[in-house]
């Protein structure tokens, strides 16, 4: 038996948690969200991005206080403790549906993007399936591998982001901002609405990731997440500022993938031109992180709801459900805009803020507090290695001497 067998499964560090949080938040929102905000708030959209900043902190404080109360449990487990077994399972089931829909919409985003920009002749289902193969592999390998991938992609995302901002400075036009706050502060406040749902409400995935952070890293966690939030706000504001400054309000609001279109404008003395594929690469990477985390959370929540011993058998079946869901989710681009910017916010805020807040309030009112080892689907003193191992999971480093694969 390995020395890790008792605590089972995997652990990530606080920094890794902050990095995957940042990548998740950048995720599919970085390319789609700014144009929606600009469509509402016009040239004051960057103020909306700033105004949305405090909500990040509120949401994180909510999840962190839930994690303080139940340090070793994920949402599925403390929902059962707080609300009773069957009500808790029902709530978890609605969360499972939420993540199922979220994953399929994220998959739809990536196939839309690839279909529009790079692979116009390739059918949707082929892009979906090839992307899903990578996702399935990532989810099989577990959260440690996902977190380490996140560390690599995080550096890449920052690097490309800095390159883009610097190489666009020569085209920046300040008069695009000119009637500053011409309708008062109301318009930027309206612009906050899509931001609330699109990345912020979806942060509820952290309730499953937080119990996996190492014990000795817990005190640092709040600090690291706060740093990630600051970086996130800076990225969002800068992206929006550059979109307005370079494309102008009209074009930025109309373009389906505004940041990608903005990167097409990069031109430094005819030497550095057409580097928008960098944006595409980084965006695919961040969407990969978001989708892999969504799939992971989806499988883990389901496994914990059903008291299974491992989440891995569920991953491939779920992807069978995801691909057709993503294909029929939106009928056209107008439907996408209507849903993603209007309906999704309410849905996502309900799951990202209202339900966790209710759980916290009920837990506080009933005095529920549990430091017990909930950790993962399985109870800790399981006599055999709980990782499924085998052919699909060759890279689970944390269990050096797990049972030999048996297929």
């Amino acid at each position, binding site marked *: 038996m390995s020395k890790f067998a008792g605590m089972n499964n995997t652990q990530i560090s606080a920094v890794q948690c902050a990095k995957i949080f940042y990548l998740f938040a950048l995720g599919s929102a970085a390319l789609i969200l700014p144009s929606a905000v600009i469509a509402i708030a016009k040239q004051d959209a960057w103020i909306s991005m700033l105004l949305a900043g405090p909500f990040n902190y509120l949401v994180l404080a909510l999840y962190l206080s839930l994690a303080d109360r139940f340090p070793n449990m994920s949402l599925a487990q403390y929902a059962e403790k707080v609300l009773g077994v069957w009500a808790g399972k029902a709530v978890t089931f609605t969360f499972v549906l939420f993540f199922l829909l979220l994953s*399929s919409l994220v998959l739809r985003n990536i196939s839309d993007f690839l279909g529009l920009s790079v692979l116009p002749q390739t059918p949707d289902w082929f892009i979906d399936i090839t992307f899903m193969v990578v996702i399935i592999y990532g989810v099989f390998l577990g959260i440690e591998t996902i977190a380490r991938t996140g560390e690599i992609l995080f550096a890449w995302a920052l690097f490309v982001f800095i390159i883009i901002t610097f190489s666009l400075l020569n085209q920046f036009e300040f008069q695009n901002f000119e009637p500053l706050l011409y309708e008062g502060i109301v318009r930027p406040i309206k612009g906050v609405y899509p931001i609330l749902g699109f990345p912020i409400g979806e942060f509820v995935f952290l309730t499953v990731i937080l119990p996996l952070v190492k014990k000795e890293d817990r005190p640092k966690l709040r600090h690291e997440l706060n740093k990630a939030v600051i970086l996130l706000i800076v990225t969002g504001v800068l992206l929006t500022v550059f979109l307005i400054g370079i494309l102008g309000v009209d074009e930025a609001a109309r373009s389906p993938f505004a940041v990608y279109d903005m990167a097409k404008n990069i031109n430094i003395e005819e030497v550095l031109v057409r580097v928008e594929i960098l944006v595409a690469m980084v965006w695919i990477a961040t969407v990969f992180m978001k989708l892999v985390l969504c799939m992971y959370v989806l499988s883990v929540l389901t496994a914990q709801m059903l008291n299974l011993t491992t989440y891995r058998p569920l991953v491939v079946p779920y992807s069978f459900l995801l691909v057709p869901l993503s294909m029929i*989710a939106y009928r056209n681009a107008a439907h996408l805009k209507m849903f993603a910017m209007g309906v999704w916010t309410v849905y996502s805020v309900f799951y990202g803020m209202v339900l966790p807040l209710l759980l916290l309030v009920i837990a506080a009112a009933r005095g529920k507090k549990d430091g017990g080892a909930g950790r993962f689907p399985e109870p800790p003193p399981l006599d055999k290695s709980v990782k499924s191992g085998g052919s699909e999971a060759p890279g689970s480093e944390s269990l050096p001497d797990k049972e030999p694969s048996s297929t």
Partner: protein
Amino acid sequence: MLAVIGIALLAVVIGTLIWIRNGIKKRPRERMWALFILLIGTAYAIGVQLRLPVPNPVDGVTFLFKPIYTPIISWIEEGS
């Protein structure tokens, strides 16, 4: 039709793999749930492929939250 056969074949292969793997590991409940989700997924995929009137969760969510988001949207769009 070819696509339907392909989906069904893929589902059978993956279902067999799940059945064998979780049988060896003696995880009957995992096997049952995984196959259940696989069955739903396959049925859904075939339904989408044949253009049957399968339920679309996006429409469901839209219907469910209509009373909440309609006033917010009209507030946002007024005066723009």
